[in-house]
């Protein structure tokens, strides 16, 4: 467990116990366990179809669980219908009510039961101010920009003071600049309210820049749940290594250990990787190395990999070289010096054993 969710913590805001969801024969969510500490920002990241949106809909109560328990603040809500849950969902396409204006949308959740009109108006105005919509309260929804709609959707959910806010790719419809601004703003609002956020995205930058912890999902399972730093530096599965960051993957077979350094036989020769897992010799493994940890040239004590220069992506502050290993494996190398090798040239790439991760291979 990460230090952000210690065992001694108070009742977690959200706890999933062995949650599974079947659609007919299709296992959309497969035995997911997850615990979210009070006020924690957790991102659920994965490719489309990995079950992340289904998981979020289960939390909202829009889908039932086939098996397992959903607990919110210690209470089992698995059988509680969506309109009785203390979670609120922010939709990818906002799902704003087109016949209401901004204030009407924000007020919706407050006006369903008995309510005091003045108190509702006060809360709506306050929430409008929090998301920066004070001047737009009487605008029809059709006249808002994407970013403004996003804020209305957020305000409409937050004003009901949920225990947990669920966000389903809320920034994916915005342009790049606005997305980055909204990321900062979401994080600010989350901190200010001290509310647990569960944020579903396929975008690594969004997940890493906002979340305290990130869960990487694949085929209905959470493959790894860690802080962005740990996730980036030490992916635990091949899928995570491929999905997160710009890792290069070298498949091989574990030859044995030399102290706390594993020796892996790869296509081009032996590779040394710092590792404490103590896997059995002969295990199929992959070695993951971040693109920026690969260097051109030779250095004592480092692994050396021969590669052939194939192409280049210029990213402004740096170059990304695309190279091929002898067995055809594609390799990406981030380079900050200006020198560009000739296409087709033989290069030597090196990396330190402690910069790579050893991962037990997928079957």
């Amino acid at each position, binding site marked *: 467990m990460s230090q952000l969710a210690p065992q001694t913590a108070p009742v977690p805001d959200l706890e999933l116990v062995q949650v599974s969801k079947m659609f007919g024969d299709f296992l959309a969510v497969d035995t997911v366990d997850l615990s979210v500490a009070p006020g924690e920002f957790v991102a659920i990241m994965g490719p489309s179809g990995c079950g992340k949106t289904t998981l979020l809909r289960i939390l909202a*109560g829009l889908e039932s669980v086939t098996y397992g328990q959903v607990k919110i603040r210690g209470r089992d809500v698995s059988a509680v219908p969506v*309109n009785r849950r203390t979670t*609120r969902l922010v939709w990818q396409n906002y799902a704003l009510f087109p016949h209401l204006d901004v204030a009407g949308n924000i007020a919706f959740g407050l006006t*369903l039961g008995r309510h005091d009109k003045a108190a509702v108006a006060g809360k709506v105005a306050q929430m409008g101010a929090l998301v920066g919509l004070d001047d737009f309260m009487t605008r029809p929804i059709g006249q808002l920009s994407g970013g403004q709609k996003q804020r209305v959707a957020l305000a409409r*959910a937050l004003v009901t003071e949920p225990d947990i806010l669920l966000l389903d790719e809320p920034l994916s419809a915005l342009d790049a600049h606005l997305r980055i601004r909204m990321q900062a703003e979401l994080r600010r609002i989350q901190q200010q309210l001290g509310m647990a956020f569960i944020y579903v995205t396929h975008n690594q930058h969004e997940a890493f820049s906002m979340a305290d912890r990130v869960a990487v999902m694949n085929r209905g399972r959470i493959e790894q749940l860690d802080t962005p730093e740990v996730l980036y530096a030490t992916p635990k599965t091949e899928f995570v290594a491929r999905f997160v960051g710009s890792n290069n993957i070298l498949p091989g077979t574990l030859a044995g250990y030399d102290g706390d350094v594993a020796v892996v036989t790869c296509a081009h020769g032996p590779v040394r990787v710092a590792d404490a897992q103590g896997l059995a010799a002969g295990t199929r493994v992959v070695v993951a190395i971040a693109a920026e940890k690969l260097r051109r040239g030779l250095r004592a004590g480092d692994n050396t990999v021969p590669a052939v220069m194939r192409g280049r992506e210029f990213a402004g502050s740096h170059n990304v070289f695309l190279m091929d290993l002898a067995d055809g494996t594609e390799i990406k190398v981030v380079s900050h010096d200006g020198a560009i090798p000739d296409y087709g040239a033989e290069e030597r790439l090196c990396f330190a054993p402690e910069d790579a991760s050893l991962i037990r291979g997928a079957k």
Partner: protein
Amino acid sequence: MKRNAWIGLGRLWLGLAYAFMFLPLVVLILFSLQANRFPGFPLQGWTLQWYARLFDDGTLIAALGHTMIVSPAAASVATIIAFLAGYALNRFTFPGKTALLGLVTLPIIIPPLILGVGFLGLLARIHLSGTLLAVFLTHVVLITAPALAIIQLRLSQMPKALEEAAWDLGASEWQAVRRVVLPFALPGILGAWLLAFTFSFDEFIIAWFVSGFDQTLPVAIYSVLVAAIDPSLNAIGTIVFAMSCAVLIALEVLLIPYLIRKPDA
């Protein structure tokens, strides 16, 4: 200029098209105000006698009254049924859904003559034949289908997330329908009502079979027409046309601004 010639020709064509469409109406209005007993030239002077006769006689006015009871009532009931059915068809998958849809749309496909015969037999058996209630019931059956088509089209444009968002914010099923689905469907509901009303208002064949002495307007007009050529028909036609115009203008003024407001994606 050659270009101008083409434009002129185009305008002439447009004028002819309009004339083709509106000439019968012009003739109707013109001869409702002319002393001629038969619609023909030369004109024999302006008069309101046909209108006076229309009101003195009272048959056609009474029929108009019947129609103005039956058609709005039938349109309202049909629209309510159509909304409920449309909502169910749009939201749920259930066994027999296709069959139900086919069943509801069946009255559109069956020739009204056949339906009329069928209704006559059925209604005679339950002693409803020849009443306004019979016309009302048969019209509900007939006009639910087109109303459903329009409402379902509108509902199918509603993102599923909209209703889910209402639930998520704490709304019960009923509250979500009342506060989100109904407002969204409103343009469709109004359109459906209007179309259903028009269908019922115009409907002749079935009404002729089942209406008996409480005739609706189209049936009454036919009866008058069979007996003799009576310029009162022009007068009642003009009155109905004027009413239609008034309703349409009112609708456009009230409804169009609402309809053209773009639905939010």
